Each structure stands twice: as C-alpha cells, then as structure tokens.
C-alpha cells in the first residue's frame, strides 16, 4: 500500500472547495427559501389569526346589533301597539259619542214626529167631531137652532162690562148673526131678552151665517158675543188640543 500524498492533498482541497461551493450556492439558497417560506407562512398565519379575530369581533358586534335591533323592534312594536290602543279607544269614544248624539237626535225626531202626528190625528179627530156634531145638528128641529140659545145670549151680554153693555145698540141696530133667517116671533123673543138685560129696547139687524150650526152671536165694534154651537165646538176642539199637548 502506498499513499499518494499529492492525490491526498488535491482531494482534500477538492473536498473543501466543493463543500464551500455547495454551501454557498446550494444549501444556503435552499435553506433561505425554506426560511423565507416559513416566515411567510408565519406572517400569513398571523394575518389569518388577526383576520379571524377581526371576524369574531365583527360577528360578536353583529350579534349584539341583532339583539339591539330586536330590542328596538320590540320597543317600537310595543309603542305602536300602545298608540294603536289609544287611537282605537279615542276612536271608539268618538264613535260612541257620535252614536249617542245620533241616537238622541233620532229619539228627538221620533218624539217630535210622534207629537206632530198625534196633533194631526187629534186635529183630524176634532174636525171629525165637529163635522159629526154639525151633521147631527141638521137632524134637530129648526127651532132648536135658535130658541135654545136665546137665554145663553142674554146671559153672555149680562156678563159684559157696563160700559160695553151701555154702548150696545146706540146709534145702530145690534148686529146679530143667526144660522138661518129668523121669523118675527123669534126676533121678538130675542129683542125682548136683550131689552131685559140692557134695560132699554134693543133693535136688532139679523145676518144669516150657516156656519154657526146653531145659536146666536152679537158683533160689536169692540167685542163679540159668541153663543153658538160652532163656537162651542171650537172651544172644545181647542181645549182638547191643549189637553193633548200638555
């Protein structure tokens, strides 16, 4: 065995050169790129972690916002409900008041219409009664249309004031209304009865008015003595109407 020292030395130098070159141009670049990738990965991880934290924070904020919105919505719904209840109550009160007012007005109208119809019915009834009475009067004897009312005429004149009674028949005949023309006896009876009441002779001027139905009436410049069946029926009718109204 023989060692070639030149070869040993050259191989040693070769190995050292190769180690240096590989370390400089192979191992270092590869290690650097691995380290750079590792650093980039760490950076990306940090960024991802930061992004995740931000996302978590955003999600938390969003959840809080949802809760807040729900609370606001509940409050708004409650307020709207209360406002609607208040408005509904006000509308109901207004409607109820309006209904009450309309009901009262209708009731008043009904009462007024009932009263009006009642008055009309009573008026018709009164007129019907007068008509009935007038028709019945036509069945009585013609003497009854005058003779039964002479005493009443004298009593009515007697109740007149003294001044009025004194002025009766002075200057002109007494205007006497009768339902039919009077015969002489009836004229004399009536003039006698008036002379008794007035204390002096009385001259009469007879005017026929069938509307009296029966009776005798005096017409003076300042007074009227009504003593007829028509006047009585009118008073009765007026009395009935007043009684019904009251």
């Amino acid at each position, binding site marked *: 065995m023989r060692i070639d020292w030149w*070869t040993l030395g050259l191989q040693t130098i070769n190995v050292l050169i190769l180690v240096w070159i*590989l*370390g400089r141009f*192979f191992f270092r670049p*590869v290690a650097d790129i691995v380290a750079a*990738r590792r650093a980039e990965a760490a950076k990306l991880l940090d960024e991802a972690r930061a992004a995740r934290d931000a996302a978590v924070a955003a999600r938390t904020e969003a959840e809080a916002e949802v809760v807040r919105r729900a609370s606001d919505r509940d409050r708004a719904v409650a307020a709207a409900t209360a406002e609607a209840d208040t408005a509904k109550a006000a509308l109901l009160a207004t409607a109820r008041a309006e209904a009450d007012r309309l009901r009262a007005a209708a009731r008043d109208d009904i009462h007024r219409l009932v009263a009006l119809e009642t008055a009309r019915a009573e008026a018709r009834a009164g007129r019907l009664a007068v008509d009935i009475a007038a028709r019945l009067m036509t069945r009585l004897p013609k003497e009854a249309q005058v003779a039964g009312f002479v005493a009443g005429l004298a009593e009515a004149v007697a109740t007149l004031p003294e001044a009025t009674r004194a002025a009766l028949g002075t200057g002109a005949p007494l205007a006497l209304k009768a339902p039919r023309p009077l015969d002489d006896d009836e004229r004399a009876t009536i003039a006698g009865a008036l002379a008794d009441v007035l204390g002096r002779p009385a001259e009469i001027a007879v005017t026929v008015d069938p509307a009296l139905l029966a009776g005798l009436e005096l017409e003076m410049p300042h007074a009227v003595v009504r003593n007829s069946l028509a006047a009585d029926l009118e008073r009765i009718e007026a009395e009935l109407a007043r009684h019904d109204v009251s």
Partner: protein
Amino acid sequence: MTGSPLVSEPLFHLGPVPITAAVTTTWAIMAALILGAILLTRRLTLLPSRTQSVVEMLVGAVDDQIRDTLGADPTPYRPLIGGIFVFVLAANWSSLVPGVEPPTAKLETDAALALVVFAATIFYGVRTRGLLGWMKTFAEPSWVMIPLNLVEQITRTFSLVVRLFGNVMSGVFVVGIVLSLAGLLVPIPLMALDLLTGAVQAYIFAVLATVFIGAAVGETEPPDPHAIAKEPETP
C-alpha cells in the same frame, strides 16, 4: 479493474503534481454537482415546483439529521455535512458510469474526507468550547482517559477511512472480478447492490461526521425551528 486498488497510478502530470484518475473523476463530479446546484437553485420560489420540493426535502433531511444528532442549530454544520454526504453519494454512484472508478474506491480520497472531518471536529470544538475547553474534553470523564481519548481521535478517523474505502473498493473489485469471469449482464445485481451500499456508506459517513463534531462541541440547548410548524399540531 486490473490494477491494485491500493495503488494510484497518475494519468498525467501538471508540473511536478501527478494527477490520478481519482482526482479527474472528482473534478468531473464537482463540475456536475456545481452545475446541478446552480441549475436547481436558479429559480427558487415560495411556491415550490416538484423539483424544488425534492431539493428542499433533501436539505431538510440533512438539517433534521444534524439537529437530531447535535441538538443544535444546523446552519453552521449544514454545508460540511451536506456537502460530504452529497459528494460521497455522487462518488459512490459514479461507478454506474461505464469505465469510471469511483474516487472513494481510492484510499487518498477517503483519507482526504476523513482528514476534513478530523479538522472540522477540532475547528468546531475549539470555536464552541474555546481551546482550553476543547482540550479539557480529553480529560473526560477522568484524566486517566486522556491517552485513550487521544488514541480514539486517531482511530475513529482511521475507521472512517477504512470503512468507506473497504466497502466501495470491495464493491468495485467484486464487480470487476465477476465481469471478467461471467457475461456482460451478470454483474448487474451486484451493481444494484453497490447502489444501496454506496447510499448507506454516504449516510454513515455523514452521520459519523456529525457525531464526531457533536462530541467535540458537546451538548447544547437545541433551538426549536419547528415551533411554527408544530404549533397547529397542538390540540
């Protein structure tokens, strides 16, 4: 393979310097490795290609081996350990090229490699511990061990030479003998076995170099370069 494996005959001379086949083969291997390194590292990107992934895996494996053995940052040791591994592997596998005898089948090449490792153990030991601290390691665990430790420095380096030389040279020798006795294709299984043997010897040489350097620099607190990578694994 007709000559003695223990003798290196010069191919030519550069002045007084004889240039043997091992040296020229080493230059060719160096040229190929340097060219390959330049090509492989020409376009390194953060998003690696398939080729770049393989390269990074190789460098990562070297780093892991150094880190596991030394328990220290592999950066200062990566060029030496990785370079020795790549060169020994390329040299061992150069026997596949017809007519080429691997440089590691010659004693001078293995001795040069062992010499570099020996010098590196001293360099890293002195740099880490200081000259006095490094010398004190020879008195561990007791001063009685000083002679044995001194002898160990020589013998273990010599064992590196003999191991690599014996394995590679024997493989080449056996293939040569079989090729001279049998047909053309008969040595192919033995050549395949040489591939495995060459890879194993490259790995063993690199690991032993790491172990020797680790023994020189002593125990250090290992950094945790995988801290970022390991973090997601934490449940």
